[in-house]
């Protein structure tokens, strides 16, 4: 349900942009989804297939780029990457309280005719 709602927002934004650009067809919709966004790409795909028929994006490909999570360690003043939601700094092992990337839910681009 979560992904359906998010896909609906993404698709409506995408179709809007496609129409503005004079598209007759949308071939690809590219999303950037953070590893810690709480969004499951498979569920997005399922929602995409349910929502696209009858739109300019019917039959289009959904391309999901996964953005890895990056944390900031205030003690070591360094960034580190981790897909663990409970990431701790690999050097000082103090849990990071600052997520710098990985929450993204973004419509990146469209391929259209």
């Amino acid at each position: 349900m979560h992904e359906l709602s998010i896909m609906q927002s993404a698709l409506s934004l995408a179709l809007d942009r496609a129409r503005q650009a004079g598209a007759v067809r949308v071939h690809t919709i590219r999303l950037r989804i953070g590893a810690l966004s709480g969004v499951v790409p498979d569920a997005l795909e399922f929602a995409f297939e349910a929502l696209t028929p009858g739109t300019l994006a019917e039959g289009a490909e959904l391309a999901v780029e996964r953005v890895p999570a990056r944390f900031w360690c205030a003690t070591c003043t360094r960034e580190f990457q981790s897909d663990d939601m409970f990431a701790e700094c690999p050097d000082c092992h103090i849990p990071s309280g600052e997520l710098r990337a990985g929450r993204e839910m973004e419509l990146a681009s469209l391929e259209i005719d």
Partner: protein
Amino acid sequence: MCKDCGCGLPGETPIGVSAHHHEHAHEHDHEHGHDHSHEHEHEHDHAHPHEHEHGPGEHHGHDHPHPHAHPHTHEHSHAEADHDHTHEAGGEARRTVEVRRAILDKNDRLAERNRGFFRARGLLVLNFLSSPGSGKTTFIRESVLKLRPDLKTGVIVGDLATDNDAQRLRESGAPVVQITTGTVCHLEAEMVGRAVKQLDLTGLNLLIIENVGNLVCPASYDLGEDMRIVLLSVTEGEDKPLKYPPMFQSADVVLISKIDLAQACGYDRDTALANIRRVAPRARIFETSAKTGQGLDAWREFLLQQHQERKALDPLA
């Protein structure tokens, strides 16, 4: 699902991207000597009428009026005078439109609008989140009563159906507006913006928004609140924060509720606190019981202090 706010309907001002990214040079890059007929009826779905239909094989003078507001060049750089070729579907006119916009951008902007509205009124706004049955409604009702001498509270409560929670909250004497979301599993900024219009804000200092009971979806939707209060009842198990990290990670405050039942359900306090700190190291933690009143004094002090800080931020106060 966003049917209420109509996300993405035309008419809004896009942010960060030029609206008409329209390099409409008709990139028929014909570097091929093929012989297909040019059925040139690009159906631009523009806001303006634009139809030119060339029959197959027709000469391609392109002297039709183009009532576009944007640059639009028909560069048919074909050597052939009467290029009779067909552009097959999925052909070479394919192009990329960069968008780079947050999917929930519209909600985020409406949330900022709400935030400005709340700040201008000196309202401290709390978004209460938890799984169903953690005790949000009861806790809010008791908070309203506890705060009454110092802060006057209004409540917006979201549920899929029924106004049972609103009725329970009204017992506290606070003004309450119920949002029934239908099938939507979370509140969105637009719903809050509408609901708040039904609330008499005169004299209110605190606005509590009780979100739909759900530990997943509401985490993604900013409503314009100052703080997110996530409840975890001792009956739910100590590992809830690990199971639903996005929600707990977004918490400014984690309220452990129903602490009076701790012993009965074998609540492991150390583990619960460690799990919360692991996911939300910066969150304030309160251990409370709406039934016995345990922890409510500390909670009240905290809110009074937050409200003072809010007032200090308000240039008009």
